[in-house]
């Protein structure tokens, strides 16, 4: 058999989602953002909701999410995505609204917006990329930065007495009556990617069922600002981030 007989559409086992554009992503090689975009696009495609999904992009490395996922997008001010999502969902209750935010965006400057959107139980999907650092601005301390972790603004390592403690905002959010599904996932290997995708799909399904806010944290790497190779960053994440930010569902009802 000739190779040409094998390369046929019916034999494809994997392909790029039609909901992803052809634009080359600006993310650093090894960055988790790109993988999360891919599975988000796949979920939108598989659910057949491209024409009903409105995305809100954050200020952070994912500000340009709108270039890569082919849906209608609103680009929010730093931290305010949940407010945009709230109004959008209330004004279009039958659409799917997804806010995509980083840890500086969601857990620092936008703490009030995310808490109150979740507490009101807005029927939205929140995807929260926790890479323990401010990626876009060059690697400063984030609220989620681990104790001892070196960043541009904690050059000798984060100290509790100087900088406070890393914030487990996802656990806080799970306390809120308005949330129906709160989970913590990761995307460093094929198994975890599959699990994270399932979680995102479930979040979208909850939104259609009007069960409340679904919140999916993805513990992520920022290998560039962690100053590590992608492989080393994944290992560092598993060894240091997962003990403090344990994976799994925190709330599912």
């Amino acid at each position: 058999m000739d190779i040409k007989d094998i390369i046929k559409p019916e034999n494809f086992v994997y392909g790029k989602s039609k909901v992803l554009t052809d634009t080359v992503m600006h993310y650093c090689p090894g960055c988790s953002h790109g993988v999360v975009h891919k599975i988000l696009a796949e979920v939108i495609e598989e659910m057949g909701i491209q024409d009903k999904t409105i995305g809100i992009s954050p200020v952070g490395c994912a500000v340009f999410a709108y270039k890569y996922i082919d849906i209608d997008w609103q680009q929010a001010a730093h931290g305010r995505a949940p407010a945009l999502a709230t109004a959008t969902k209330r004004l279009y209750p039958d659409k799917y609204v997804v806010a995509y935010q980083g840890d500086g965006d969601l857990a620092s400057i936008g703490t009030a917006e995310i808490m109150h959107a979740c507490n009101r139980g807005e029927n939205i999907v929140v995807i929260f990329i926790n890479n323990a650092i401010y990626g876009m601005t060059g690697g400063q301390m984030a609220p989620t930065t681990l104790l001892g972790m070196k960043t541009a603004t904690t050059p000798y390592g984060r100290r509790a007495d100087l900088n406070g403690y890393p914030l487990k905002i996802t656990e806080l959010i799970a306390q809120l009556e308005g949330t129906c599904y709160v989970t913590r996932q990761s995307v460093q290997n094929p198994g975890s990617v599959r699990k994270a995708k399932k979680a995102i799909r479930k979040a979208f399904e909850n939104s259609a069922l009007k069960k409340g806010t679904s919140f999916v944290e993805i513990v992520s790497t920022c290998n560039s600002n962690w100053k590590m190779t992608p492989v080393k960053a994944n290992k560092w994440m598993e060894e240091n981030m997962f003990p403090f930010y344990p994976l799994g569902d925190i709330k599912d009802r």
Partner: protein
Amino acid sequence: MAEKLLKKGNEAIALAAIRYGADGYFGYPITPQSEVMETLMEEMPWETTGMVVLQAESETSSINMLYGGACCGKKVMTSSSSPGISLMCEGISYMAGAELPCLVVDVIRGGPGLGTIQPAQGDYFQAVKGGGHGDYKIIVLAPASVQEMYDFVGLGFDLAFKYRNPVMILSDGAIGQMMEKVELRDPVRRLTDKEITEKYGHWATVGKPASRKGNIISSLSLAASEMEAINLRLQAKYQKMRENEVRFEKTMCDNAEYLLVAFGSSARICEGTLEIARSKGIRMGLLRPITLFPYPETAIREMLPQLKGIMSVELNAGQMVEDVRLAVNGAVPVEFYGRMGGSIFSPEEVFEAFAKKFNL
């Protein structure tokens, strides 16, 4: 006969929002404008027109809810008072940058800081010169009666969508709290989602059909050359506003030798000052800018040949007077009289100040 009611200015805003077909109101309580949201909650428009009314967790959130709602092609509004508007300035700049329509009502109180809950006009600079960052302009409407509070909601929405730009109603605690007769205009129906998609589907985030590319609403453009081009387009739009949207009212200006310039509640007080002046044989007129941006500078300039002097009368330290002086450009003396921090002048007080400044 249209229905007439006795209403507070703030209540008129709320009734007008429902009757002009607003899709959403998002706000946070602050004196002296809390009646706007309170009235909306009492009226429960979600049961009738389907309008969404939501108490947000802060003014920062309110304005960003407007951003989201406006992205959807919906008619959205908020109201607040000075400190709350300060918090909204980031969002207003974003909305101007992303070219989004919305209506913001500022019922000014005395500042700076937490200040006082009494009426003032100290937010003129913030509204007209841009409280937020960057080169942007919003259309600013200054009502001087409860009827205008009502009418400017409709006008404000029309202008916001005509130019895809934020519009502000710049009022104050006096107009917000005072009760006057207000005539309710014919109601305007809310657009259906289908109508919104037909009208604004080429830019709004209404869900992307297979037939078009995704609509992206953003104020970001990292390349300097692109950002400059966007700025030039915005400036051209602001120029169109200057050419087409100037509104003002003249009282006893035909044979006036002296001119008072005042907006909002100051203009109401100055009507009394005109009567005092006229009774003393002084030919005084009043020019009331209704749009503070675009400013009626031509209307002022056209009167210069007949004028001996102008006095700008404001409830602040002298803000609009700068625009009067720019219009006049030294041709006649321009004086200022004002009070601050929630204190209000009487017509007599304004007349005395005028007489002193012009040695009459």
